[in-house]
């Protein structure tokens, strides 16, 4: 193999698995260390810069970082990254003085943002401090979008949404609530310099089976029902409730129903339990509230009597693989099953809907009737119009919406500065040694052996009585510290200097994970089999040195490195060093575009 080019920004970025997996590339280990130090405000601001909604995401994020976390490969469970983010939000000092101030002199450019959810707010957050006049339109009276209307209050209290949307509105953004944009053509005619569409995926998918019309009074579309609950229009549901669907919306529906009088709430899903789209922890929370999840049942018919829903008939299915290896659900042939109920909540998916975008204004749509959007720049085929969040590529989650927002804001800023939108500036990368003494480092390299700590929950009886009582109580500072100590500091990189190495084997001998091998070079597939411990995780890179004096190379398998720094402590010549890698993703801001950046 060729010597690894560690100056390419991506190489060390990939080693920080959590940050690499995060769509917004939040510097996770950096803020976790600050939490351990009790510097909650600093930890919060790092998050705020990357993901805009730390308090909201600390409760609701889909956490792609956690399955990626190296700790999950070293022992059983990843670091509770998401809940640590909440610790920063819960215990921070007043951060208001640290927020950017509204710009005194605007730059004269006007940007319209359709929809007041996470995507639009992220764009506004990035653009307003640069002097843009941002106007956010939303059909609801308050900002927040689906974060406010679809996520139940017992998971995400209004106070958190108010605070974090407030930080953005306070940047001098004009929020026009209660105004639905009906015509893109009209909006375009209002002489904005750019338009961002972050209107989400607002339409719940229908379930057209017999009985749907007749029993319509007791059959509700999940997301519409959730927002009706959120606004206080709905405060009751029948005693027996069936929730159809296996995603996170279904989980929110069933848990909300439990709090509005549903004593017997069931979730009934077409697929198997493992294949359900809902996050494992959301399924767990639902089951903890005595909600059974029944699988492999396909709804066939709503039964009704005199216009009143009486139940749902299901066909039993099983999963069979066809000759192409695809999983298909086929009927088992067993008799259909009838479940009685008073109400049904349909949460079988969400769809985009753009009836308000005229098709003759240069915005092209594809065959699924979705706008054609460039995934890098978020630009549509109309150079003035950008998309982001669920409106761009269909339903995803908040953290993706934020990532889209950053990219779109950068594009808008570049376009309105007369630059090429397709040229994306490189991120800013810093690598700095953490050595403080012969065996002292500026990070805590003593690896904690603790297992993942559980987040304390409110007593179930109390929680089920009050729809606004937050179920998760969050880590207290002590639990937060202990959980933070589980982080392996993957951003503190092992950096090897070939010319200093005397091949004494000290690093090989001390490495607790057998990551390091000195051997003859070869092709990657061959090298992977010749290491001290087999390197079977192909998603993790091998770090290969230049050729050493004995003709061998140093090969380090990044897979399960604890970043404990023992290799560097035991190295007599300083050939190993522990260096902190910080990557600052390019957001819309002024200096980044003027100067070309070089990496590490």
């Amino acid at each position, binding site marked *: 193999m060729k010597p690894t080019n560690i100056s390419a920004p991506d190489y060390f970025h990939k080693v920080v698995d959590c940050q690499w997996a995060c769509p917004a590339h939040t510097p996770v280990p950096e803020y976790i260390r600050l939490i351990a130090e009790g510097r909650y405000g600093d930890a919060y601001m790092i998050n705020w810069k990357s993901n805009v909604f730390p308090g909201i995401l600390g409760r609701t994020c889909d956490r792609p970082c956690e399955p990626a976390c190296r700790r999950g490969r070293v022992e059983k469970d990843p670091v509770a990254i998401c809940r640590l983010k909440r610790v920063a939000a819960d215990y921070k000092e007043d951060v208001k003085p640290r927020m950017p101030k509204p710009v005194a002199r605007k730059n004269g450019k006007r940007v319209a943002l359709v929809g007041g959810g996470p995507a639009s707010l992220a764009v506004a957050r990035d653009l307003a401090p640069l002097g843009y006049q941002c106007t956010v339109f939303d059909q609801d009276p308050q900002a927040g979008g689906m974060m406010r209307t679809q996520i139940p209050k017992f998971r995400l209290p209004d106070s958190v949404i108010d605070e974090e949307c407030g930080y953005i509105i306070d940047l001098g953004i004009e929020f026009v609530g209660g105004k639905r944009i009906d015509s893109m053509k009209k909006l375009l005619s209002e002489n904005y310099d750019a338009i961002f569409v972050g209107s989400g995926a607002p339409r719940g998918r229908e379930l057209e089976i017999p009985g749907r019309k007749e029993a319509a009074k007791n059959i509700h579309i999940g997301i519409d029902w959730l927002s009706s609950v959120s606004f206080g229009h709905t405060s009751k549901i029948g005693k027996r409730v069936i929730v159809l669907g296996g995603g996170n919306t279904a989980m929110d529906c069933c848990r909300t129903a439990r709090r509005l009088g549903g004593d017997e709430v069931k979730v009934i899903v077409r697929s198997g339990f493992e294949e359900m789209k809902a996050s494992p922890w959301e399924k767990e929370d639902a089951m903890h509230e005595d909600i059974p999840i029944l699988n492999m049942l396909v709804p066939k018919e709503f039964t009704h009597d005199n216009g009143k829903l009486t139940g749902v008939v299901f066909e039993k299915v099983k999963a069979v693989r066809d000759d192409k290896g695809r999983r298909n659900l086929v009927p088992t042939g067993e008799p259909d099953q009838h479940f009685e109920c008073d109400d049904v909540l349909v949460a079988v998916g969400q769809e985009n809907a753009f009836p308000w975008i005229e098709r003759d204004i240069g915005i092209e749509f594809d065959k699924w009737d979705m706008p054609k959007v460039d995934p890098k720049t978020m630009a549509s085929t109309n150079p003035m119009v950008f998309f982001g969040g669920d409106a761009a590529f269909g339903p995803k989650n908040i953290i993706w919406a934020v990532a889209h927002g950053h990219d779109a804001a950068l594009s808008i800023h570049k376009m309105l500065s007369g630059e090429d939108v397709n040229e994306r500036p490189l991120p800013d990368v810093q690598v700095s040694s953490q050595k403080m003494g*012969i065996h002292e480092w500026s990070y805590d390299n003593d690896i904690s052996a603790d297992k993942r700590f559980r987040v304390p929950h409110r007593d179930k009886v109390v929680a089920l009585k009050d729809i606004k009582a937050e179920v998760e109580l969050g880590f207290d500072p002590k639990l937060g510290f202990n959980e933070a100590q589980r982080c392996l500091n993957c951003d503190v990189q092992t950096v090897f200097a070939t010319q200093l190495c005397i091949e*004494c084997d000290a690093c090989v001998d001390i490495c607790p994970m057998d990551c390091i091998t000195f051997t003859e070079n070869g092709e990657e597939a061959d090298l992977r089999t010749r290491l001290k411990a087999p390197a079977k995780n192909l998603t993790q890179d091998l770090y290969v040195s230049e050729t050493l004096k004995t003709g061998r190379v140093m090969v380090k398998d990044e897979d399960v490195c604890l970043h404990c720094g023992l290799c560097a402590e035991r190295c007599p010549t300083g050939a190993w060093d522990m260096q902190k890698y910080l990557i600052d993703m390019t957001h819309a801001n002024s200096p980044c575009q003027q100067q070309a950046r070089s990496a590490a």
Partner: protein
Amino acid sequence: MTYIAKPKFHHPGLPKNELGYTHRDYEGKISTLCAGCGHDSITAAIIEACFQLSIEPHRVAKISGIGCSSKTPDYFLGNSHGFNSVHGRMPSVLTGANLANRDLIYLGVSGDGDSASIGFGQFAHSIRRGVNMTYIVENNGVYGLTKGQFSATADRGSKSKRGVVNSDNAIDLAAMALQLGASFVARSFSGDKTQLVPIVEAAIRHKGAAFIDVISPCVAFNNHAGSTKSFDYVREHNEAVNRLDIITGRAPIHIEQAPGTVQMVEQHDGTRLALRKLDADYDAHDRLAAMAFLQKHAAKGQVVTGLLYVDPEADDLHSHLNTVDAALNTLEAKDLCPGQSALDKINAALR
């Protein structure tokens, strides 16, 4: 020196031996030696050898004297018996322990100061008596604990870190061991574990006095230009006579297919040693030739490594003395005191 404990986590794909242990289970405490010390590599080689041989840790007694090298038994086999004895007295303590209980595997760990100076006599007598042991000298040519004076194994003409030239003749412990009748003599280098690990394994399985001289660079005081025990010098002047593969009943045979003939040697316990000759003229069964070979190459400034001599039919001290098979602590009063009638018989025979 490292302050933190080595984390207990280990690679999820680590191989396990016959006993279900990984090599991590053969570790001891974290080393307090200087970073990069050759001794730590020898520690790692001993750990690997014991792991490969599936040795039960409680069947091992590790015994040492005083010095950097003699600290190392604390860093391997944390679940074995240990005795950190007086300076230079490891061989005597080991001999006593071995006589008392022949069932344990004896690992004597010593250094060039411990064995070639203060304990030179002890070393000589344990070897000439044929005590069944693995005697490892971690040889760096300097007194590291007292800041780098020449030891008795430093080559004449080599330079200290401050530029002083050594005017004394060097003791070649491997040559001494050959002369004193050791039935297994090897020399290796801490920076070459592929050579060292099988040698340690073969020595552990050898019945009789097995002696290994391991050149182990002292990174603090003896790893500079002018030293003959530095990483660079040993790598440049290493004259390996053979490569060893050890084949126990269970372990698969891995013999590199490379030029040179392979000689099979079977030891007492059935372990077979596959010796791949690197020097066609070298015969590891010829004690006299081995001694001459060592002298000849030492004169040229070369460091001869490999398995230098092995007598697969060797006996040990217990066979010479015809001692009782059982460990002394298992003997009951009735075994030790045959009674009045036996005493009367002896007395009668002397009248």
